[in-house]
């Protein structure tokens, strides 16, 4: 576990807001020189705290109007069926997130689609045909807010 000081926290907040800037530009916002910023960012990357980047795209403007979260229960359980299911589900391009969970479902999936009828196609042809799939619950995403977290 890594200990963070106030400057590290400020840098992390800046990087989650905009990671596309140079070390000099990020340093400016927290009152740090370019070399000092660069060293701190490298340390945070080496410690695994800064774990890559994601591109924030306007999904709707790109024609993906619907995001659905699915809770999936497996009908049959066993090591082989878990592996088969996981291999098949992670390969579906419309499935953005696969989480193995404990609770009333076995997996949580985030599925993106052009519209509801496109979602229905993905659900019927790709999800319901997955090996071992049992109960599926769908909730359509209305809003999605990312918080800075405890930094």
């Amino acid at each position, binding site marked *: *576990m*890594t200990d*963070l000081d106030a400057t590290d926290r400020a840098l*992390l907040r800046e*990087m*989650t*807001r*905009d*990671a*596309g800037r140079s070390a000099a530009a990020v340093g400016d916002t927290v009152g740090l020189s370019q070399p000092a910023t660069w060293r701190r960012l490298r340390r945070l990357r080496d*410690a*695994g*705290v*800064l*774990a*890559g*980047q*994601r*591109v*924030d*795209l*306007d*999904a709707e*403007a*790109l024609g*993906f109007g619907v995001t659905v*979260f699915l*809770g999936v229960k497996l009908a049959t359980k066993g090591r082989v069926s878990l592996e088969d299911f*996981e291999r098949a*589900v*992670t390969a579906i*391009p*419309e*499935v*953005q*997130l*696969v*989480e*193995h*969970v*404990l*609770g*009333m*479902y076995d997996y*949580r999936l985030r599925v*993106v689609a052009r519209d509801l009828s496109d979602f229905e196609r993905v659900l019927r042809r790709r999800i319901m045909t997955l090996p071992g799939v049992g109960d599926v*619950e*769908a*909730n*359509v*995403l*209305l*809003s*999605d*807010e*990312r*918080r800075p*977290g*405890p*930094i």
Partner: protein
Amino acid sequence: MLDDLDRRILRQLQADPSLTAADLAGRAGVTALRATRRLARLEERGILRGRRARIDWTALGYAVAVSLRFTLEKTQSNAFDAFISAAREIPEVVEIQTFLGRVDVRLYVIARDMAHYQQLYRERILALPHIAELEALMTVATLKNDESLPL
């Protein structure tokens, strides 16, 4: 609205968000100037909203992650707003999503360990207003999380 080149650039950028305009140009088979212009235009149109750093909370000692799924008391007209603004006050809440379906709101909560989670759950989560029902899915493993759009 998007042409083939826009799609090629965005696909490459999604695959590796740390690529520079020159790298992207090479992979998309155009000059750096052309790639830079396209990126600027995608930003101007609000399609490319930015690159955000991902924080690996486990590297910061947050070993527990739980999806809490809420049904709210909808007889209160301000239930959603009151619930969400109270949830924003909890630093360990890293995602707030609203849904159309059986689940109204989902909070993604991180904690250092189970004792910390139990404390958060009792003192902060159960104190949120207008909860009708609540269920928890504890994340065991995240098998895929790239948030890429199938462009």
